[in-house]
């Protein structure tokens, strides 16, 4: 998994490529932790290159969402692949998260 963090205007775009599984999820969590502490920002998970996500990955997405929102910011995901999207659908995450 490769994580890149870009600034797109005011928004922070986190570009995730590869597999987000039990092994890689902690990596993601670590690399975006400082970013999430900031106030009132827009965080976008760019999932164009996300091949796979497991429950551990979902956990990181959820905790990210919670901290961004609790800091008064906006959180969104975009460009989910069909398979990844189905995992979000199955777990009901697509109903609670903003997915573009």
């Amino acid at each position, binding site marked *: 998994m490769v994580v890149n963090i870009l600034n797109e205007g005011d928004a922070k775009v986190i570009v995730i490529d590869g597999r987000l599984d*039990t*092994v890689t999820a902690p990596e993601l969590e670590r690399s975006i932790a400082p970013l999430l502490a900031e106030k009132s920002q827009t965080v976008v998970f760019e999932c164009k290159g996300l091949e*796979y996500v*497991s429950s551990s990955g979902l956990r990181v997405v959820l905790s990210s969402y919670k901290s961004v929102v609790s800091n008064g910011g906006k959180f969104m995901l975009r460009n989910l692949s069909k398979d990844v999207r189905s*995992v979000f659908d*199955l*777990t009901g995450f697509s109903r609670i998260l903003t997915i573009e």
Partner: protein
Amino acid sequence: MNIRFGRYIHSFSTKLSFYILLVVALIFVAGFVWNYRSSRDFVSNEAVERVQASLDGAVMKIDNVLNSVETAVKNMSWVVADNIDDPESMYRLTRMMLVDNSFIIGSAVAFEPNYFEEKGHYFSPYSYRVGDSIYNKQLGREEYDYHYDDWYLIPKILGKPYWSEPYFDEGGADMMMTTYSFPLYDDEGKLFAIFTADVSLDWFADQVNCISPYENSYNIMISRGGTFIVHSDKSVVLNETFFISSSAIGDSRFKEVGHKMQAGERGVATFERDGQEFYFVYAPIKTTGWSVAVSCLYSEVFAGVDSMRNNMFWIAAFVLVIMAVLCYVTIFRLTAPLAQFAQSANDIAHGNFSARLPRVKSRNEMRMLRDSFDYMQRSLIKYTEELKTTVANNERIESELRIAREIQLGMIPKIFPPFPERKDIDLYAMLVPAKEVGGDLYDFFIEDEKLYFIIGDVSGKGVPASLVMAVTCRLFRTVASHVSDPAEIVASLNNALAESNESNMFCTFFLGILDLQSGKLLYCNAGHNAPLLVAPGGIVTPLDVKPNLPLGVIGGFPYVPQETMLEKGTLLFLYTDGVTEAENPAKELYSDARLKEVLAAANSDVRSLVNDVKSSVDTYAAGTEQSDDITILCLRCNAEEDCMCEVEKELHLVNELSEIAKLPLLVGELASEFNFSEEQVFNFNLVLEEAVTNVVMYAYPEGKSGSIDLVAKCDGKSVMFVVSDSGKPFDPTLVPDADVTLPAEERRVGGLGIFLIRQIMDSVEYRRNGGMNVLVMSKKI
């Protein structure tokens, strides 16, 4: 308003008050009437006596005067006789009469015609009073022949003294008078003169009018001929008679009274005239034969009584009103608690046992009612408490029994398919316990490619039966692991049970040992009903069994083993009599025939066949309570079937998260063989990752290394993953699913893994097997 009014009308207070008042009013009225009557009688008697007394007084006075006149005339008559030779002296004598008797206003000595030749036809010396003076004159003359006057003619004819009827004298005194005539006879007894004395009736009228017992009473005096001498209406005096009046009134009773008065009687009469009743009290003046009467109005006589009556009436009315108010208030107060009691009773009926009761201070029936209510409340509370305890106790017992049953049922295998990894045997069993703890049992296991299976039914119910069942199960496992001959197993079970069978429990029992490779079935029956064989195509036949004796009846019974070949695809259906003896509401049994019908038409899958039978039984029972355990065991041997297409991959991992990276390789291998879609690959990867992650995370204590065995099978129709580990017992299926409907803020991070597994796979089963946690996940593809 009407309802309120109606309530008051029908209320206790109103009714009671009404009745009490009614009675009191009746008593009042009765007393009132009695009192009124008696006082009226009393007053009436008293009044009549009083009137009569004053009447008698007046009459006596008049009579006295009249008598004195008579006496005076009689006395003077001697003097007249002595002086008969001197006609002129008569004037002196008549004058003397007037001088001596103030009541006499005129006096005459009227001679027979030509008694004195020198005096001629008419000679009647007369003295009369005008004011205080006394005058003399000679009465008779050509124009006035006194000889035909009543006062002369009548005594003359009668030959005795005579009081004339009253008349108005126009000749002399111009007043109403009566004349006393005294006939005078000579020595030869020949009448020669009438000696008279005139008496003014004015004085008599005054006497009569003095009788005034009541303000508006009025008096009359009538002569013998009924002529009024005294009357309130002056115009009728000497003009009308009593009988004329009575004729004008038209009341014949007047006439009768008039006759009585004429006859000199005394008495009392009552009349009504012009709507007014009055008393008519009369008494005679004996001297003249006249009669005096006083009439008094009832209204006056009874004025006192009537005013007393009115006073009493108002007093009574006042008292009644006061009583009405008092009665109503008192009764209302006394009965007021009743309405509150009704409310309390209502509250109590609705379960509020501590409903407030009305306060009753006085010690009366109402207080007793209150005490009874109070007692009832306390009894109800106490009883309810006791009931709660009893219910709690019952629940505890029931729960203990339920636990016992759970323990019992825990002893039998309940995970189906029991051998998911084997394709050569399909087996499904079901034990539906009756409400009470029953004694049905079944069990099975595979050892050395042989399936040992039993079904049994312990006689009786309850805890003893369940104990026997437990013992039987345990014994079977123990014995069967050492012995492979069915008859031997059964015999030893029989002996063990019979040995210690003090309560004479027994158990029908069927044991089968199926060689899974050859399909050969060895079996031994101990008094159990024969299992059924269901051939493909729905042909149902009973397995040929020797009955033998149930277990525990006689120790050392020689059980005979039997054997047969179980054809491929043929179902063996074992059951207890709970199936065939299930009852419908009409107490009719389900019956073997019905069972066979269902079996003949049933699905060939063991699980659905068993469920079909069960639902058929349930439908038949139609809610009737299940009286016996229902136990079914159904199996099918697929021994000869080849599993040519099946691919099995194994992977051995250690409990490291990094091992997860190996999983896509395993999935990839299967995918290449069976052409999985990308989605399938994604999903199976996800499933395996989640399952393995679970084991890595939870199965072994921190820092302790362990192994994870992964088997993946696929036959082109379905995929099965079996994940086994030797870690601490952990059933991931018991982890509650993440609630995916919750908003993000409330989401917990756990539970998502097993949830995803369940979502993706068709079946997820866990069992603990030989110290291993085994998670079997399968999905049709």
